[in-house]
């Protein structure tokens, strides 16, 4: 078989299996309260780990990334609609790049 095709199938498989197993197996299992809390906190810790420090290198300069990030934090703190937070972040980053 085509080597590249094999690669895509292999990558697809190792991506799908870790996504699928817990979804199918853990759904209706009773867990001790420590583990319930542990699982319920995962969204927050994972999202933070995804944001920082990755955001610093998300645009062509740290300055523009920080500007966009700060604007997004302010808009999010004011509970502005999510789409506007996204566009605010992009505009902030773009403005920095136009200025500097």
């Amino acid at each position, binding site marked *: 078989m085509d080597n*590249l*095709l094999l*690669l*895509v*199938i*292999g*990558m*697809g498989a*190792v*991506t*799908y299996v*870790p*996504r*699928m197993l*817990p*979804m*199918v*197996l*853990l*759904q209706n299992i009773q867990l001790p309260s420590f*583990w319930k*809390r*542990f*699982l*319920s*906190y*995962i*969204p*927050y*810790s*994972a*999202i*933070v*780990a*995804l*944001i*920082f*420090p*990755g*955001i610093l290198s*998300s*645009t*062509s300069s740290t300055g*523009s990334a920080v500007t*966009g*990030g700060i604007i*997004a934090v302010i*808009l*999010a*703190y004011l509970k*502005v609609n*999510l*789409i506007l937070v*996204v566009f*605010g*972040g*992009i505009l902030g*980053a*773009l403005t920095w*790049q136009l200025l500097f």
Partner: protein
Amino acid sequence: MKALIREAVTAKEDQTAFSAGIKAGIPIAVGYLPIAIAFGLLAQSAGVPNYITALMSLLIFAGASQFVGVNLLALGATTWEIVLTTFILNLRHFLMTASLSRRIKADTSKQWMALLAFGVTDETFTMASLRKEQQLDPGFIFGLNLLAFSAWNVGTWVGVFLGAGLPEMVQSSMGIALYAMFIGLLVPSVRESKTVLFISLLAVAVNSLLHWLPVFEGLSAGWAIIITTVAASAAGALFCKDGEV
């Protein structure tokens, strides 16, 4: 008759949940398009055949892995090395789906769960699990994942066939889109809960140490995210006994 009405009501509920999912997916789609376009461009310029690029987005549907995969291909890495790297990079989804599985309505069939699992990405996971409602409708997750998946695939094609239409500066600024979305999802929860604030600060600290301390220099971003997620969630579960966040 009653059964018919019940069926009609369920169908209506399903449809509402599905459209709510599509709606919730819009910010993700906005963020995915430029990244998928960039992926298509990169793959094209690295000499990956178009059908392979398209198949990657169709069968793998994981941004970071696809970028890394194409990079490694260009560097001449073996199939094995690339598959192993992808596996490590995506192991964090194991934690995410473990968490998400418990929020989806308990009567959802295993087949449905297996289908929904395919569409779980950092972004769809975050969007779904930060919803206010404790029990999520599978139709909602399906709509959310479907829009994200479509945007990712359309973007890939645009990147492959239209090339660099957007000015470089705009493209680079859009790199921040998904981060801004994550911020938009996280910050309101931090505002409302001391527990979330505690976990977030801890996660920033742990991930920064893993990123900048010279001892951890060889550690990949994939492992850093896994270690941070486990450490901060475990600390939260140990020290914050107030139950739900």
